[in-house]
């Protein structure tokens, strides 16, 4: 009786999770995968084949876009790490107890506003008639307005701003676990600030660094709004290609193939990153 009850409660507790995995993750991906392997041979006639993938390989603009998306995402990840690490270190190790909560909250505040509004915020700042351009004109540094939008730099700035919180949170949680005595021991045994950072703090924070990088890279490579709004028509982000296939060209098969390719590509990059850093998913993303 009680064993049955326990089993029932286990099933009930597990059910939402299982449904979520099955309905929202497994099924759509299987559907996309199946869709991507259908070739259109005639109107409403389909055949199994890899033609959609072949098209990706033979058309340089497609894989160039994917490589461009990948390398820009890596750059965004790197910048988020370089900017986020000192912030996380300050919050976790230098700030006092009360300041820590306030600083953390300040990092969270941008999340209360939607992605779209945040991107428009950047547009207000960066466009030709925007705040920065006007200020420069007012100071007399330039005669005509300057367009800061619609270039790669704007896209990267916007993306770093959007994702940096997801770098800071795992970094703070790992750095928080490192005792101050670890750093003092590093100095006591003769290390200078650089040695302590390189040989003690960074290796200790490695699980957090890798976790943050994985999350940030995946979010960036899969982002759509920010590159489109800040990069304009020329942003050439891979998600834009997928959107075009599905919506503009009504080529669901091609779009599905691109979706699968993006997933494979980002997973491959994450796998390489894990191998290079000697970490595993279990002690990085799964831990935090």
């Amino acid at each position: 009786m009680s064993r049955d009850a326990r089993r029932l409660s286990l099933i009930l507790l597990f059910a939402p999770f299982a449904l979520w995995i099955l309905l929202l993750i497994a099924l759509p991906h299987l559907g996309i995968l199946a869709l991507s392997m259908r070739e259109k041979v005639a109107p409403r006639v389909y055949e199994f084949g890899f033609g959609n993938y072949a098209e990706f390989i033979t058309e340089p603009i497609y894989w160039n876009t994917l490589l461009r998306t990948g390398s820009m995402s890596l750059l965004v990840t790197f910048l988020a790490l370089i900017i986020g690490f000192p912030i996380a270190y300050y919050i976790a190790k230098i700030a006092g107890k009360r300041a820590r909560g306030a600083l953390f909250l300040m990092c969270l505040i941008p999340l209360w506003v939607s992605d779209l509004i945040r991107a428009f915020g950047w547009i207000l700042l960066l466009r030709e008639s925007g705040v920065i351009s006007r200020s420069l004109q007012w100071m007399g540094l330039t005669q005509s307005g300057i367009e800061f939008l619609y270039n790669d730099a704007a896209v990267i700035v916007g993306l770093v701003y959007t994702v940096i919180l997801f770098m800071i949170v795992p970094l703070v949680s790992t750095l928080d676990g490192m005792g101050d005595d670890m750093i003092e021991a590093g100095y006591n045994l003769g290390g200078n600030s650089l040695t302590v950072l390189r040989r003690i703090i960074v290796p200790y924070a490695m699980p957090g660094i890798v976790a943050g990088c994985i999350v940030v890279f995946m979010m960036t490579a899969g982002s759509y709004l920010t590159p489109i709004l800040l990069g304009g028509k020329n942003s050439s982000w891979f998600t834009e290609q997928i959107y075009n296939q599905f919506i503009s060209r009504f080529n669901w098969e091609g779009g599905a193939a691109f979706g699968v390719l993006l997933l494979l590509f980002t997973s491959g990059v994450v796998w390489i990153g894990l191998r290079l850093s000697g970490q595993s998913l279990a002690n990085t993303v799964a831990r935090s």
Partner: protein
Amino acid sequence: MTDQTTAAFDLDCEGVTKNFGTFRAVDGVSFSIPTGTFFSILGPSGCGKTTLMRMIAGFEEPSAGDIRIKGKSVLSVPPNKRNVKMVFQHLALFPMMDVHDNIAYGLRCAGVPKAEIGARVADVLERVALPDLARRQIHQLSGGQKQRIAIARCMALNPDVLLLDEPLGALDLKLREAMKIELKLLQHQFDTTFVYITHDQSEALVMSDYVAVMNAGRFEQIGRPEELYHAPATAFVAGFVGDSNRWSGTARGTEGETVHIETETGLALGGSPRGTAPIAAGTAVEVFVRPEFITVTRATEPAPEAANHHDGTIDSVLFNGANSRVLVRPPAGGLIEADVTLTGGTSDLRAGDAVRLSWDAAQTMVFAA
């Protein structure tokens, strides 16, 4: 002072003071530690001993005073350039490195050539008797092994002074007892000055050549363990080092070397004046008697010759092997602790037995309160 006299001391502190805002954590502490001694700083938590140690290591800057290592002031030397190594309370071994890399870290920082590092790590591991652990991860080590690796990591750098900040605190009792002896042996073997911080008086007494008792930022007394125990300079030292029966009372008058006391509980005692403050009739005093100096005899048996005799009944017997003790309630009230030998035979003392307690005036330490 010539170079020769200063060089005999590995560590010299002179009037070292540290203020945190208006709070004075360390107050004018001065001491010199001769080369190759095991020196303990003993005090209750919050007495300033950790702050003092952090100043020696360079993590805090003294508000006043001077710290000299091998005769040279180190006040302007940053922590990573001082040849003072520290074993932290929680050891602070680097969990992302194995044992070899933990020890090699300091050697690399010191610029020791790569070829030599392997040999020196192996040598120091040999000396702490853990030669096969070089490639172990830190989390695979036992508590005692971690302890020795933390010491080895410091000793590989041949420090002038090794600081130990209550490193035995986290160990269980059995291991702590074993490590006490081991630390003493390691100190002999390395022949380096150890400065050991603890709040545990038995650790300090067992291991040290010299002990400084610290209270409220000041050194109360520096001396050999037996001096602290038998000839405490202040009431704080008498109460903090070793067990004792303690009474507050008033001096009633002196008679030669003996001072007559009446305690608040109404016991009349004869004791010997200690400390620097003079004791005359009417002085408020603190009285200390160690339990092992009190002889317990049954009321029916003859008691030994002594200045103090008090009758009472045994309230309870605290059996602890060789350290067994009885609590005796005299008619005046209160409890007196006395050490006894319990053999397990029928003649052992039991609760409710009428007994007579006897001890000498010389064993009754009287301090002006």
